[in-house]
């Protein structure tokens, strides 16, 4: 995790929806990029900082630039990542 004054190129924006924004207390956070950072890495980082994301027993997937992706997808600072719990629109 990092604070706002650190370089933008070293972080990726992660938007949080549903239960996850309540758990974290924010609607978006920035995750540090280290080498090739995948969605799987982002998931691991999020769970390590916010273990309560697991205790709700609610699964979630990730979107990169508004498309749901596999966990091996690598992201850069230019991407918009979003944590998506199970949807219930309509």
């Amino acid at each position, binding site marked *: 995790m990092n604070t706002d004054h650190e370089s933008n190129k070293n972080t990726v924006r992660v938007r949080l929806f*549903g239960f996850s924004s309540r758990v974290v207390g924010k609607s978006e956070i920035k995750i540090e990029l280290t080498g090739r950072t995948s969605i799987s890495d982002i998931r691991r980082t999020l769970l390590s900082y916010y273990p309560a994301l697991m205790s709700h027993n609610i699964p979630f997937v990730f*979107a990169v630039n*508004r498309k*749901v992706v596999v966990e091996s997808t690598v992201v850069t600072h230019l991407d918009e990542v*979003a944590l998506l719990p*199970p949807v219930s*629109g*309509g």
Partner: protein
Amino acid sequence: MQKILAEMADESTGAIVFFVGTVRNHDDGERVLAIMYEAYDEMAQEILEKIESEVMARWPIKKFIAVQSTGYLKVGEISVVVAATSPHRQEAFDACKYGIDTIKTSIPVWKNEKVESGEKWVKGVLLNVE
């Protein structure tokens, strides 16, 4: 609703079908007081447009509209409208059914129900990898 009805009017079509979803006062055995609809707006909009394209490609529909409400809705308020207009009624019914069935499993919208015991997130379905 009036606005959508006006938009759907077309002299070349003989059928306008609407599906209107409203907030129900119960869910899973509990009384519901209201629902907060949260959306990933940009992604939801893209997917609604994709659904519209799919409908227009699949059926002879003249116009198709799908609108999802967001924010705080009370029981009885309209949460979603899907409307189609076509020369004949069958395709309009089919398009609306496809529209609402697809919306329910594919747009990034989350319902947080305010119930008597507190609040709870509706269980929902995970989106698939595209």
